[in-house]
């Protein structure tokens, strides 16, 4: 297993939306879920997680609700809102187009031009 990848600028919001889209999560759960999906390859700075969650909630993309955690503690669970789902879809499309294009550019060889 190689070095953990640094998060690209602006991708944290998208990752949080994706994580939450799979089911309501508390903040720590979001962290674990992202590590889980990326098979431990993505390292998220814990310090930037909560401001991002608050920002997304402020924008109305996710909604927080207090509930019980696995070990019967009170925790704030975030779920995707309708606007969040729409945002995730368009952002994911953008991201795919971008990576495709970047990939094709970076793989070009001199003789193909």
């Amino acid at each position, binding site marked *: 297993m190689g070095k953990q990848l640094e998060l690209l600028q602006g991708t944290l919001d998208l990752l949080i939306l994706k994580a939450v889209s799979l089911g309501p999560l*508390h*903040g*720590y759960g979001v962290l674990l879920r992202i590590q889980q999906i990326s098979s431990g390859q993505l390292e998220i*700075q*814990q*310090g930037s997680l*909560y*401001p*991002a969650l*608050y*920002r997304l*909630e*402020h*924008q*109305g993309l996710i909604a927080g609700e*207090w509930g019980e*955690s696995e*070990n019967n*503690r*009170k*925790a*704030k669970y975030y779920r995707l809102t309708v*606007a969040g789902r729409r945002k995730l879809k368009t952002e994911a499309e953008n991201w795919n187009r971008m990576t495709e294009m970047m990939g094709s550019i970076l793989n070009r060889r001199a003789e193909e031009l």
Partner: protein
Amino acid sequence: MSARSKLRSWWKAVTHRSAFESQLDAELSFHIEAYAEDLMRQGMTRDDAFRRARMELGGVAAQKENCRRSLGLRAWDDMTADTSYGLRQLRRTPAFTVTVLLVLALGIGTNAAMFSIVDATLLRWLPYHRPDRLFSLYLADSKGDPTWPFYQDLIEWQKNARSIDSLAYYANAEGYLQTSSGEEEFYAYQISPNLFSVLGVQPARGRSFVADEQMTGKSNVVILSDAVWRTMLQGDPDAIGKRVRLNDKPYTVVGIMPPRFVFPANDKSAQLWIPAELTPAHLRPISGYETPTYEVIARLRPGASADSVSAELSGMEERLVSVYPTTLKFSRPMTRVGTMGYRATLVKDSRPALLALIAVVAIMWLIACANIANLMLARAMARQREIAVRGALGASRWRIIRQLSTESLLLSFLGCGFGFGLAQLALEVFSQTLRTRLNLPDHLAPDFSVLCALLLLSVLSAVLFGFFPAWLAARTPLDHSLRQGSVQGGTTLSSRRLQQTMVVAEIGLSLVLLVACGLLLRTVFALRRVPLGFRTDHVLMLEPKLPRFKYRNVDKNETVYNPLLQRIQQLPGVTSAALTTVLPLHRGFAAILELDVASSGNSTSPTLKIEAQLKAAGPELQNVLKFRMARGRFFNHQDTANSPLVAVVNQAFAQKYLPAGDVMEKFSVRLAKGREAKIVGVIDDFHQTSIDKPAFPEIDLCAPQLLPSDSFYQPTLLAHVEVAVRTQADPQAVIPAMQRAMVTVNPDLQSGKIETMNQIVEDSMGSQLLAAHLLELFGAVALLIALAGLYGLLSYLVAQRSHEFSVRLALGAQRSHIINMLLGQAARMLFAGAAIGIALAYFFSRLITGFLYGVAPHDPGTILGVTALLLSCGLLAAFVPARTASRCNPMDALRGE
């Protein structure tokens, strides 16, 4: 969508702040615990696990701050912190705070009062649809003086004018409404049936008039205002169709207007309206005085302007005038039709005064702002060290400016609040005078637009007096003020220069107000000194008012006025009393006589057009008013109905119409066929219409000699009669007895008005007196504020430089030398301010030229006198701190090092 959710989450966080914070805490501590538990499961000790968890989160406080920032709570937090800090700072320096608030309250309060007045007059709300499209139409002569158009004119306009959408007309009527307890008089108007639809207002109940109701026999219908309906009919819901007795005739109520509707807009809201009845006189060709005239209000077509209407109607009027009878064409040479916005007609007399006063309060506000800016600057300089420390601890310059600006805004809003209260108080105090002078509506309450203007004003004030000092304070290099150990180090040359500039500006602006004030005071003195030509002391004027409808076919002189006169003459304390149809300086009724006279039988000589005021008076009038005769005699008791007819003219008449030859020989007044009055005397001129206008030519007829059949009876004794009374002692004391006498003679006289002549003289000074009173007040306040500014600045400078003065004294400087130095500094500022002020006053005094009498707008005496006053007051204000400076003890300062 996003903006709304953002606002909602921000608002929730702001309003439920403690819940927000505790949830944030709970969320973060849950995170730490959950993570630590996971770590412990991997074999870490509890303490290590928690330490690691906390470390990775990166500091709970910083986390929380970042979370708040993502909600935009940071700016809010800064603001609340700044506000509470600012309030604490203001509480700590009560003298400063109170001074600033007082000055600000004065500056803003005068503006608020003025705004309310302007809002109620120039920008007045009118209860009509699109009132800005309503215009008054009138006939204008070559001088622009208006007359009401004839019925035939306005019918022609109504039919043919393309630029007018609709046109309505109206005139005064009598409005004595019968009640169970007697008659009560209301403002009544006879109107064209379409008036309300032209105004765009429909009755709240019932209907408007219909065209048919202008016909004789169908015109006994009335529409009541809401106020009359409520008071007279107790708001009876079934009032429509009810009968009322109006002017002793039965009328049917057909409509009730909505509350707050008033037309014409410049009188009280208790009004009623009846249809303008069409009589045969309306339909005959225009003949002169018998043809009815009306005031006209029109709604303009979209796209039409006042000028285009005036041009179109003037063209029409030219054709109409050509069929006027020749005498009328001669006496009323008017072909132009004037237009004026209806709202403008309501304030046309007070407009210049209002505009001048707006300029005055604006200047006061500038003075107040300059003054406070100075105080703020001094304060910012004194806090230089605090600001430098903040800067050293990492506050950005913008952050410091924002913090200082918050304080200014706080002061400004507080000052605005006090100013608003002050304005209300001032309006209460002045309301009586203002109401009579400015024709204000019943309720004078600041509305939404006034409050908006005030808010804007206070923010603007804060920017003016707060931003520059803050900017200047934040600009000074940090190390500079930190390195200098003493508190005095802060003052920089640029800030001191700015302060001096502001004091100079204040002095200049105050001088402008003082000059205006001085000129108006001179005007009032000049008006008071004008020889009126008659005595005003111990004179009462009584205006009997009779319901016309009751006395239409009765000789009021025989049945009412003469008995009243006899009764008054017998009252104790009354020396003499006389009837007169015209009262000097009164805006009452005055018939202007216009007639053509062929001089003494010579038919070839050109006719002479005479324009003179006609008056009928009793013989005692000379005893009451004590005017002098230039020649001959006034009427006396030998001039009775059976003696030879006599008349008297004034000198203006004699000089104007009979420059050569003997007026008493060559001129006579023909009352009726075979009844010629001989001129027996010439009165010395006195001011009949107003103090600032010269005497107008006048012909006096002897009241006891006039017969109802005489042609001059109608415009004199029939139209309007007053009783002039000379009393022995204080005229006020006689008023109750006279009131009782009036009612005993005839109960219909109960609403008669009694005034002292002195009061009438005061009233006739009108706008000048009002402007002078207000300006006296404003001028004094401005002077005070400017002097306080000068004093404050010098005291501050002295305090700043006390160290320097001590060293100077220790090195052997004379105390008088220090006083002279400081006074010299003050004098430089004063002279600079005075120079600017005189230059500004030169322009500003043009604004008030219209109010001046007996003094030129650039009167050097006034300007010099006022300047001298300002300079001497200024030097006095400067002397106090200068003396303090000269008294500092050298040892104190040196020891303090």
